[in-house]
């Protein structure tokens, strides 16, 4: 007993002490001085080290890639090796990294002052990283210049512009188009029209469960911890002309269009796989003949032939013959007030403090064969951003033969029609950062699970909640 009574007063005293230390005191100033001294030491050390090592001075370029599956990493390493063969003084380290952990890894790297030189990342991170000042925009500009600004598709280039500086914040690399993939055979048998509009989707929702082997019509993104729900919903919202800000810069998360979009999305849960779902469950349900529609990126295309799964044997066993051939592609969605398609652009960001060699390395990855080698890793999920690469890309995959030519051309030109909340012309840097925050805080998946699964929000209260939250985020970004 005595021990605990000792701990407690002490803990309280500590707490008081802590509070007292919180105000800036002379002690803190001393700490700062110490730091300055510490900084000088390594500089001197480097000088000492460099003198004897001048002959074989090696520049290390650390390249984090979210293309983290083993064969892809191998390919990146192979491409890097080609560069290193020509430049013996450069060592490129390819570091595979999980999409989900990238935020945390960047944070720890930043804290350790060990930011990588190049990071492959989704466009949604670019604006927030640019706002935090950890991207080297001049380096990105230089790479785009050296690869040839005219060779980039216009859509992707516009998306990476940092409105605050007018510069390109990162280098476009590849991307995919989102669509509803659906069972053309079942749709035809049941007399359903292709799911390209709210009406036809609702009709399918009513008819599909119980038709053929299907248990459900679709899988919705409802897992509040996953961004998938946001990706699907954003297309639904845009198809109803619902955007987070109006032209005057006011938050518009509670407009009738937004409420309508939320209600439409939630109503699909009646025919959807139960429980919190995201792309993994969605893909499985479609491949296993359990659901008849699938919101997914073009990445799915080879999986629909082979079954998604492993390079090293063992795939989802698709019980449907020629699933790919029976699958239709609906990238555009028409709503009551508009139409939209959705996609993702992936970029290579050059991080602040990166060695200038990093620019050459990025350009190397975007050049000729090297670029095609990257695209070949998942030809359907990596639509080229360079016009000069389209020809080569279209010959990359034997799976092309499984899909209709119109599907193919829709994909190749996908970047030109693709939309995102983030890149609505006229949004300034603050608004983009707020949209990044909406995704970062998973606000949309949170309300979607609240409406569709838990029933403790209605579309109206959810919209009010979103409005309040986004206004707060905006105020925080402005303040």
């Amino acid at each position: 007993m005595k021990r605990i009574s000792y701990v407690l007063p002490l803990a309280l005293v500590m707490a008081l002490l802590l509070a007292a230390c919180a105000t800036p005191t002379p002690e803190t100033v001393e700490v700062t001085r110490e730091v300055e001294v510490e900084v000088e030491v390594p500089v001197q050390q480097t000088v000492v080290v460099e003198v004897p090592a001048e002959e074989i001075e090696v520049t290390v370029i650390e390249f984090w890639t979210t293309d983290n599956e083993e064969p892809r990493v191998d390919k990146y390493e192979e491409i890097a090796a080609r560069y290193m063969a020509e430049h013996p003084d450069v060592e490129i380290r390819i570091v595979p990294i999980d999409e989900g952990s990238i935020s945390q890894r960047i944070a720890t790297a930043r804290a350790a002052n060990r930011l990588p030189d190049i990071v492959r990342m989704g466009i949604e991170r670019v604006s927030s990283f640019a706002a935090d000042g950890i991207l080297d925009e001049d380096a990105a500009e230089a790479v785009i210049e050296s690869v040839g600004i005219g060779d980039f598709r216009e859509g992707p280039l516009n998306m990476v512009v940092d409105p605050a500086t007018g510069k390109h914040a990162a280098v476009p690399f590849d991307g995919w188009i989102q669509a509803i993939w659906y069972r053309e055979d079942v749709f035809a048998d049941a007399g359903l029209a292709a799911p390209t509009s709210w009406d036809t989707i609702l009709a399918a929702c009513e008819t599909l469960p119980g038709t053929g082997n299907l248990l459900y019509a679709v899988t919705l993104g409802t897992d509040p911890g996953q961004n998938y729900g946001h990706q699907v919903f954003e297309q639904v919202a845009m198809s109803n002309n619902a955007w987070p800000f109006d032209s005057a810069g006011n938050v518009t998360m509670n407009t009738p269009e937004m409420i309508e979009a939320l209600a439409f999305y939630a109503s699909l849960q009646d025919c959807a796989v139960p429980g919190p779902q995201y792309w993994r469950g969605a893909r499985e349900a479609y491949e296993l003949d359990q659901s008849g529609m699938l919101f997914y990126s073009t990445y799915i295309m080879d999986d629909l032939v082979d079954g998604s799964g492993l390079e090293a044997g063992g795939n989802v066993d698709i019980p449907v013959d020629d699933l790919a051939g029976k699958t239709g592609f609906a990238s555009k969605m028409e709503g009551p007030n508009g139409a939209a398609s959705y996609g993702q652009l992936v970029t290579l960001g050059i991080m602040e403090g990166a060695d200038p060699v990093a620019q050459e390395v990025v350009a190397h990855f975007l050049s000729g064969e090297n670029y095609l080698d990257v695209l070949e890793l998942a030809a359907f999920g990596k639509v080229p951003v360079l016009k000069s690469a389209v020809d080569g890309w279209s010959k990359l995959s034997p799976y092309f033969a499984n899909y209709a030519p119109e599907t193919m051309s829709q994909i190749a030109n996908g970047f030109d029609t693709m939309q995102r909340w983030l890149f609505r012309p006229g949004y300034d840097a603050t608004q983009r950062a707020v949209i990044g925050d909406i995704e970062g805080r998973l606000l949309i998946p949170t309300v979607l699970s609240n409406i569709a699964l838990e029933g403790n929000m209605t579309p109206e209260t959810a919209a009010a909640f979103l409005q309040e939250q986004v206004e707060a985020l905006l105020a925080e970004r402005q303040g």
Partner: protein
Amino acid sequence: MATQPKRLRFPFLRHWNSLQAREARLAWFLILPTAIIVFGLVIFPAFFSVWISFHDVGLGNLNDVFRAPFIGLQNYLQVFDDFAFKFQGLSSWGAAVTSIVYSFVATTLTVLIGLIAALLLNRPFRGRGATRAIFLFPYVAPIVSVAFVWRWILDPRPSGVLNDVLIRLGLIDLPVAFLAERGLALLLVVMFEAWRYFPFAMLMILARLQAVDNTLYEAADVDGAGNWGKFRWVTLPELRYVLGAIFLLRLMWTFNKFDDIFLLTGGGFGTKVLPILTYEFSFKLFDFGKGAATAMILLVILLIFMFLYVRVVMRNIEED
């Protein structure tokens, strides 16, 4: 430990070579490595964390934290006003209330189940040693393994065991996503905590039970007490102190627990407790000041509770 020796009162230097002084030097020498590691890696960072909570630390200046601008209580005010933190009615508790409810219920359940397990194992029977060892499994097995097994047993997909069993029994028609329903998810996380940590309580209680003086039971026998009477009037009073101490320890640990919920639900469906919120502020939103402020709030709640607990509950036990 309560009796501090008076010998130490002598001025230190004059007795540099005295036996006590040499003893003290040796003692310090023995304990110094431990003290340095613990103070350096826990106490100092804890102070540092307080400092961070009053500054604006983001990704932009994380590599140079000491230059971060001082922003007073702003982080705290923002956290208090955050939708994920504050209580907004019964359907959305917010992390603070969720944390408190979760830790109290989980700790109570853990101690209760630990008590039952200890009572079951207190009587000798064949195979008691093996049973006791098996009872320890949940506590010693890696959290990653057990969390993923449970997640999978509770999975809403057709291969989830619990759904299969309940459907076969005719209790439900369609699979339920157990870990994804507000309320149910929190309850299951609480039950998981109890499942995982009851062995700790059991061990402590068992040790105390075995130390209970037999004459007390014999006296109760003489008085004609039944099993319940013996438990109520002999066992329970003997266990009071242990139960109180276990409750306090487990509450502290549960309150600070991050991995279990992170691995089970990721903090969704009404299971977002303060440690998860801290992690999200820091590593998802890169607002390290807000993260630190959330952690400080967590700490203050814990301190207040401990103060009250030791003041009221433990004092009562001691006086009895």
